[in-house]
């Protein structure tokens, strides 16, 4: 298996805070990789570095062998990395459909004027975009609410929509930042299946941050554990569950178990 994403000694500093410290990791094609660790460990920051929101203080990020350390976020999205956000960032006042269509904008072929003036070829492209978006919404079960305003959806559906929106950019690598946050166990279970499904359906690789250990342990092929910005463990779910350091820093000692 070849790696899709590779981080080499990435350091991210904010003033005095070292949010990510010498992080190196690899994500293999077609796998589901989890990034876990206590709050403030630097997981989201790592995502932000990967997606170009922050430029790392030092280190290198490569995607499919290409150095993307200094790329801008929208270029990275175009290259094939999509993400969701820890605190949902939908285009709240736009419809569900529009949210998905916006994510398709990056592959638009018709130029500005063709598009703006609704030239025949642009109209055709728009039609295709809409069809694809409909299909996607169908898959994530949001067809019924496609004309609703995004902010009016219940929390769980917003999470789904965020994933659908990310998928609409046709990514090869999908970064999910706490997708199960705020979901009850039932929903979390459904999400577990959903993630597996989309991975196969869209033939993508997934890197995910999650605190729900059920989910993580069930679907990850590989887990990285961060603490204070530093990698403290890496391995399969079984290895991680048994890792002393991880139990100390994150999983907690199960005194009564």
């Amino acid at each position: 298996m070849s790696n899709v994403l590779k981080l080499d000694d990435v350091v991210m500093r904010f003033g005095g805070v070292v949010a990510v410290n010498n992080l190196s990791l690899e994500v293999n094609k077609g796998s589901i990789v989890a990034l876990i660790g206590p709050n403030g460990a630097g997981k989201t920051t790592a995502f932000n570095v990967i997606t170009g929101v922050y430029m790392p203080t030092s280190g290198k990020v490569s995607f499919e062998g290409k150095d993307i350390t200094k790329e801008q976020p929208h270029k990275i999205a175009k290259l094939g990395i999509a993400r969701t956000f820890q605190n949902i960032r939908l285009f709240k006042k736009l419809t569900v459909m529009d949210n998905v269509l916006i994510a398709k904008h990056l592959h638009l072929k018709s130029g500005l004027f063709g598009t703006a003036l609704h030239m025949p070829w642009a109209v055709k492209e728009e039609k295709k975009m809409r069809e694809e978006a409909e299909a996607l919404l169908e898959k994530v079960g949001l067809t019924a609410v496609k004309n609703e305003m995004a902010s009016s959806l219940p929390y769980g559906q917003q999470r789904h929509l965020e994933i659908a929106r990310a998928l609409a950019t046709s990514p090869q690598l999908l970064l999910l930042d706490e997708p199960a946050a705020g979901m009850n166990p039932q929903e979390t279970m459904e999400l577990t299946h959903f993630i597996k499904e989309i991975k196969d359906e869209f033939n993508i690789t997934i890197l995910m941050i999650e605190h729900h250990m059920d989910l993580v342990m069930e679907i990850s092929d590989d887990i990285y554990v961060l603490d204070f910005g530093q990698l403290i463990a890496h391995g399969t779910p079984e290895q991680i569950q048994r890792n002393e350091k991880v139990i100390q820093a994150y999983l907690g000692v199960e005194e009564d178990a």
Partner: protein
Amino acid sequence: MGLQTFMQHLANGISLGSLYALIAIGYTMVYGILRLINFAHGDIFMMAAYLAFFGMTIFSMPWYVAFIMVIVVTVILGILIEKAAYRPLRDAPTSSVLISAIGVSFLLENLATFLFSGKPRAFPTFETMTYSLDMQGVSVQVLTIIVPIVTLIILFILLFVINRTKLGMAMRAVSKDYEIAKVMGIKINNIIAYTFAIGSALAAIGAFLWGMKYPQVSPLMGVMPGLKCFIAAVIGGIGNIKGAVLGGFILGLAEVLLVAFFGQLTGYRDAIAFILLIIILLVRPTGLLGEKTAEKV
């Protein structure tokens, strides 16, 4: 250019700059707490100038009585404006509040035009202030010496109030976090009202001194000084009092020195403020002494 002329220019620049600084502090105070560009500040300044004018001419108050009266009434005006136009928008997006501020500014200008007519009036001055001292060929008005002193005194008083008193502590707290300030038991509306009161008082003092130096009042007199002082505040780093003073001096000196060294460009003088502003914003997006902020994703 002779040394004497240069010194004269310098004196002019400092004198103008310190007036800018004084008014800029008011902008910065309000911005620092409310994150609001109080576009109406220049017009509050104008209203204060009119109050002083009417006080001293029609009601023939002695200047010190007028001075106190102007400060009191302007403070009330400032608080009223805050109450009527900004408080209802406390939870609204910044753009709504900014538009409200522009609206207030527009209203004050039109109201002044309606009430006082568009005609400029002569601001009463008195000899003790306007008397020119000759310092080895450099003539300096008494006012030119007084204004920077007043500005610096006010700066130090405000720094003291803000950094050393309970009120100041509350102001700083409110500026960072309304909600938690509330949870501390701080009545944020009162704190904001105090801030406006201080800002308006500064506008009043500024108007008084401005009137002495440029003895003329008109409904639109606040527009340009307002804009320039706002720019001064932004240059210095809006929200930072020391920055406002720094920005004021820089702007005043820049304007006068442009005239001094590039006489043929004097027509571009008003552009200087903006050019300076844009250059500084490009180099330091939050001004010279402004704090950097980045959005956490």
